[in-house]
């Protein structure tokens, strides 16, 4: 029984990893080799594709831009979601249920069709082609998610703790920062991870709201299609480099991520 389980798991993992292996494999090949004979391992192992990316500012600035707006988005999302999630987990107030549903319904709006209004809105307030524009636009779907996850984690903290702190003379602000936030550390970590994930993988809004200064890496990748056809090696290397930050981030939250995937509600 155990063996059949392990076997099944292995087969699925191979299915997950094969396409990624192929990309990594390609990124270490020269274009001649890619287009020539199909090889399972690069015969002329080369770092040229990576060197191209790391020495060309128009390439590596794409990564800097992406990481900048993702980080800004994470900070904004956490700052406004923490108090909001606290309110949802502790208090009843006028319209709370409707507000919560409205928040979630934003996740259901097809982004492809809201591109033009988004572009007009951010152009009219002078934010077009800034990192802040992309960070704010991504808030539309990261904040609902963050509130949902945080609310789940916060509801797991008994309210007696709040009340004891108030009796001991803590103000709301001091209680929240000194006592409450450390108690839901793992929840915050998981929320940051999900915020990162959704902001990092999104391309449409990021591409629409930027032109030069804040252009994300995923938009720059389309550059590899040149007059001489597609530069497959560099394309693959750029792709591999977009996977790395994700691995790094998930490594930090690996112990909490299972709970986070259930949005703190298991």
């Amino acid at each position, binding site marked *: *029984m155990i063996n059949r*389980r*392990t076997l099944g798991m292995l087969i699925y*993992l191979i299915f*997950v*990893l*094969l396409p*990624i292996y*192929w*990309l990594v494999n*390609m990124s270490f090949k020269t274009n001649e080799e*890619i*287009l020539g004979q*199909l090889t399972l391992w690069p015969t002329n192992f080369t770092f040229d594709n990576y060197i191209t990316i790391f020495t060309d500012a128009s390439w590596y600035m794409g990564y800097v831009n992406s990481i900048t707006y993702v980080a800004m988005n994470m900070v*904004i999302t956490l700052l406004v979601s923490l*108090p*909001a999630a*606290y*309110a*949802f987990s502790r*208090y*009843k*107030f006028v319209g709370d249920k409707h*507000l919560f549903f409205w*928040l979630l*319904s934003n996740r*259901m*709006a*097809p982004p*492809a*069709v*809201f591109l*033009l*209004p*988004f572009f007009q*809105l951010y152009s009219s307030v002078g934010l077009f082609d800034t990192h802040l524009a992309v960070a*704010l*636009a991504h808030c*539309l779907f990261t*904040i*609902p998610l963050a*509130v949902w996850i945080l609310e789940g984690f916060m509801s797991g903290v008994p309210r007696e703790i709040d009340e004891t702190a108030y009796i001991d003379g803590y103000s709301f602000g001091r209680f929240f920062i000194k006592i409450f936030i450390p108690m839901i550390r793992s929840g915050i970590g998981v929320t940051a991870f999900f915020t990162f994930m959704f902001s*990092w*993988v999104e391309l*449409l809004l990021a591409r629409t709201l930027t032109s030069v200064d804040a252009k994300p890496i*995923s938009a720059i*990748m389309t550059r590899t299609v040149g007059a001489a056809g597609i530069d*497959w090696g560099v394309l*693959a290397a750029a792709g591999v480099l*977009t*996977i790395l930050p*994700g*691995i790094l*981030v998930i490594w930090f939250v690996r112990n909490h991520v*299972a709970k*986070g*995937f*259930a*949005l703190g509600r*298991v």
Partner: protein
Amino acid sequence: MNKIPNNKAWWLVLPMFLLVAFSAIIPLMTVVNYSLQDIFDQNTAYFVGVEWYQEVLRDTRLHDSLLRQFGFSFSVLLIEIPLGIAVALMMPTRGWQASAVLILLALPLLIPWNVVGTIWQVFARGDIGLFGWTLNNLGIDYNYTSNPLDAWLTVLLMDVWHWTSLVALLCYSGLRAIPDAYYQAAKIDRASRWAVFRYIQLPRLKNVLVIGVLLRFMDSFMIYTEPFVLTGGGPGNSTTFLSQTLTQMAIGQFDIGPAAAFSLVYFLIVLLVSWLFFTTITHMEKSDSGSKYDK
């Protein structure tokens, strides 16, 4: 947890509300505005009422695209939900293997969507891709750039690769929350493996499965980037899903009015299906209140 009524809590919600409202309500209102007018340029626009709505509801191109979209979303759910549950049941539960499998499974979820398209574009090609090359050498005539069925299947396979992990991780976290006592009780009763799954594991997975089905439905229904990169919607129209048809209308042909009208219809369809699904589930939950969760 019983909550205290307190309207001052709005002050805590307000910053979040303003921020989301800025990005949500203004663009939505703009779309509503477009959908009611015939726009020629910046200064010339005529109010046309519900004319665009009548037009798009009769548009056969949109009907086809909507049908394709439903077909795709149902196929996605039909494959990914059972497969995700199966993978979750096979995942190791402790030790370094558990962490390793968790991270490897989460990998596809962390790749930018256009890179997912690129990976499969390369992987499935008959000349330079491992997958396409292997199929061709096995004597299967496979070419996703010219055969509509192959293209459709490739997009489906790509989506299964990309998103099954999400369902699996959701179910995995659901399974971890089942107390050991349940399994011990089943052991004493000599329950079969199937009985354990059917009467212990599956009921406890309901909450996470609701989230999983909702997320997968919404996201697959709005899919845009991956098929756009992989096939560009072709060959023919075989992989042109709803988002792409609308983008073509709005940006390609500049038919903003009809595109906006249909966008709103589209939004309402997603809302309606999600709401129906959600109420059905919660209604079912109420009717069999015997199975109350112990948390």
